[in-house]
């Protein structure tokens, strides 16, 4: 049994990065390592040796995040559940292939993202490509630009804001959605996202930039001053 170093915790109390205007040095994205705890490698080592409780503890830690990921990528609850279950079962079967050159979570996300993509592709008659370069950037300059005021999100109830964001993610094309989800929701680094999807760093970056601009545009329709919700 594995019971030495387990501290129960739900979610991660991530710090909110400040919003201090463009001219101050931007705070880099929160480090993805904030979700990996120090004892993780011990759990992985124990699980590799066949300790079922250690593996289940790893599942307990990441099941919410993995479900959110599969849900966001597949856009479908049934597929999300299947993808999550298969991801954990595959992770267990292939645990010997995990050599610790990445974080366990990144490795798990890679498996979960692939399971989700497989299911998404089955449901989508129109295939999408993650790998091909996104066409020229002549069109990136935002057209809708209005003042938001200092704290526009405060005019919204949490649930309302989450509804707006969920709708946005659902409507985003898969090739942008997947990158945005891994990068800005799961907080993988650009390199980790590229590895998880098996695509190049420039391919990740060009999709991420477009997805973020679309996100701003979506929120602009809600946040511009004087607009009713």
């Amino acid at each position, binding site marked *: 049994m594995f019971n030495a170093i387990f501290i129960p915790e739900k*979610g991660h109390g*991530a710090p*909110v*990065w400040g*919003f201090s*205007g*463009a*001219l101050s*040095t*931007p*705070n*880099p*994205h*929160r480090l993805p390592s904030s979700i990996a705890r120090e004892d993780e490698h011990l759990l992985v080592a124990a699980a590799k040796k*066949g300790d*079922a409780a250690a*593996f*289940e503890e790893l*599942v307990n830690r990441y*099941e*919410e995040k993995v*479900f*959110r990921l599969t*849900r*966001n990528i597949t856009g479908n609850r049934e597929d999300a*559940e299947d993808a*999550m*279950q298969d991801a*954990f*079962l595959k992770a*267990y079967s292939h645990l010997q292939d995990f050599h610790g050159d990445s974080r366990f979570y990144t490795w798990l996300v890679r498996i979960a993202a692939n399971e989700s993509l497989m299911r998404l592709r089955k449901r989508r008659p129109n295939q999408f490509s993650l790998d091909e370069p996104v066409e020229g*950037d002549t069109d*990136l*300059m*935002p057209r809708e*630009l209005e*003042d*938001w005021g200092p704290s*526009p*999100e405060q005019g919204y109830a949490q649930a309302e*804001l*989450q509804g707006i*964001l*969920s709708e946005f*993610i659902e409507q985003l094309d898969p090739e942008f959605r997947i990158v*945005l989800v891994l990068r*800005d*929701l799961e*907080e993988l680094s*650009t390199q980790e996202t590229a590895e998880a999807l098996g695509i190049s760093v420039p391919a990740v*970056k060009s999709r*991420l*930039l477009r997805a*973020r*601009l679309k*996100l*701003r545009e979506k*929120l*602009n329709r809600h*946040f511009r001053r004087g607009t009713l919700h």
Partner: protein
Amino acid sequence: MNCKGVIHELSNYLDGDLDPGLKTELERHLEHCEDCTMIVDQTKKSIEILCDSRPVELPSEVRSRLHSALRQKLSSRST
């Protein structure tokens, strides 16, 4: 750097992933361009809002099904 250049480097800038020379150029542009400043601020704010959202919860029945599937697999493995 012009407006187009700022948009092109926007993600890298927000991620703190821009080399110092380009960062200085970009910030010099922001000093006199209100539109780009607004785009940078709003995009940063948007990512922050997305980052802090928790849109999907794991329903308890989904969790139970996961753990029973898992236990089945784990028990078939052990000895």
